[in-house]
């Protein structure tokens, strides 16, 4: 129990120090843009596939559930609300945690094992500014954009099934898809991925910086980043949803 408390404490300190590092120069703008490209452009393919299949499955399953009530034509409402509110942000974040969070953890852990973190400090560079802050900014900015892509492609995937398999009129599908969405859904759908981006970056950095035990430790850090990142995403999804539902 004390061990877990210490981890939470260390993680919180790391988050605080990284946020503080963001407030003082130097700001590694070129490195941040490079990370945005690596995280953002590099993840487009997996979030497109995630969105496409999620939307298609939702259309198939939703139609089965709505058919007894003669409401199959409203399947786009089901798809757009569930994707924008929950599935889009969460599934995109989980996929990105698997690709990006583990990448950050293994890269930093490898740098630690090979003394590159010490070398950075010896060269007068703060690793938190150079490595953690740049990745944090990149994740917080890019993951909401990736989530928008996921959402869009998921609704598009649902339309493919609705049009080709369920025979729903396109105009009807798109009208109800957008009709169902409220402004707060869109706001929540963007706040959540920003928070998930923060978690993915910081869990990855924490796992990397706290790596121990040579190359074996690199593997452990990578696994830890994936597991802890995924659990935190799911837990924060619940709390954020609860919080927004409490706001009138």
């Amino acid at each position, binding site marked *: 129990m004390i061990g877990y408390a210490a981890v939470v404490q260390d993680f919180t300190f790391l988050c605080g120090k990284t946020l503080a590092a963001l407030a003082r120069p130097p700001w590694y703008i070129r490195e941040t843009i490079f990370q945005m490209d690596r995280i953002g452009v590099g993840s487009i393919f997996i979030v497109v596939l995630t969105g496409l299949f999620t939307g298609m499955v939702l259309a198939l399953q939703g139609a089965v559930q709505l058919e007894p009530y003669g409401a199959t034509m409203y399947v786009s409402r089901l798809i757009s609300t569930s994707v924008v509110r929950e599935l889009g942000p969460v599934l995109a974040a989980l996929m990105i945690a698997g690709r990006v969070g583990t990448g950050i953890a293994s890269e930093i852990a*490898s*740098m630690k094992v*090979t*003394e*590159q973190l*010490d*070398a*950075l*400090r*010896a*060269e*007068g*560079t*703060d690793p938190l500014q150079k490595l953690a802050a740049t990745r944090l900014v990149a994740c917080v900015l890019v993951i909401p954009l990736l989530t928008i892509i996921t959402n869009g492609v998921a609704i598009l995937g649902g339309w493919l099934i609705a049009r080709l398999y369920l025979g729903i009129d396109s105009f009807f599908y798109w009208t109800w898809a957008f009709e169902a969405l409220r402004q707060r859904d869109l706001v929540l759908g963007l706040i959540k991925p920003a928070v998930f981006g923060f978690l993915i970056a910081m869990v990855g950095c924490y796992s990397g910086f706290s790596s121990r035990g040579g190359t074996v430790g690199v593997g452990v850090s990578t696994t830890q980043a994936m597991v802890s990142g995924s659990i935190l995403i799911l837990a924060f999804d619940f709390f954020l949803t609860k919080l927004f539902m409490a706001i009138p």
Partner: protein
Amino acid sequence: MIEIHDVSLTLGEQQVLRRVSFQVAEGATTVILGGSGSGKTTLLRLMLGLYKPTSGFIRIGGEDITEFSETDLTRIRQNMGMVFQGAALFDSLSVRENVGYRLWEHHLQPDEDIHRIVEDNLRFVGLEHVIDKMPAELSGGMRKRVGIARALASGAAILLYDEPTAGLDPVNTFAIGQLIARLKTKGVTQVVVTHDLDTAYRVADRIVMIVSGRILFEGTAQDLRNCRDQSVREFLDPASAVTA
């Protein structure tokens, strides 16, 4: 000048250094000898401010760095260079970018001058032909020499070497010994951690021997050769100790 005064360090449960004191004169080369796990590398890291001593203090150029913040340490480190045991070159950067890292990072020189300094330092270590290669394309000896070039490029007045010849063939070991000897003539203050006696005898103005975190010997290379202390003799001539 570097002054280590009564420094002890405990990491976790283990006491790594016990009341270590010695001084490194400006422009001199001090070799720290000792077996594996004796605390030599830890001592270098303390000098660089990567660890803080549990007790005692460290002065670099008259400034007590023991309680320095990371920002103050960054200022002190700008006058120091470190050659890490595994070279610790940045994987994602080319040799050119590694060697000029500090100069580019802190905008210490105009771009053209940095390129010239990088080329000069790579020429000094005999590696100007690998300037655009990546670290992964270099041999162990080359990586170490690029590490030395990186430490030199910033114009550091103090150079710290962590096992610069470990794992190298005799040719590369000799080449690195030569480099350290050449830097002596330039007035660079050097601290060399090693367990390679030949290199130690070749480059040292003074030798400090550490065993189990304690200083066992301090003096010149000649003093070390003449030392009759049993533990020192065991380190210098393990074969005779085993026979005895």
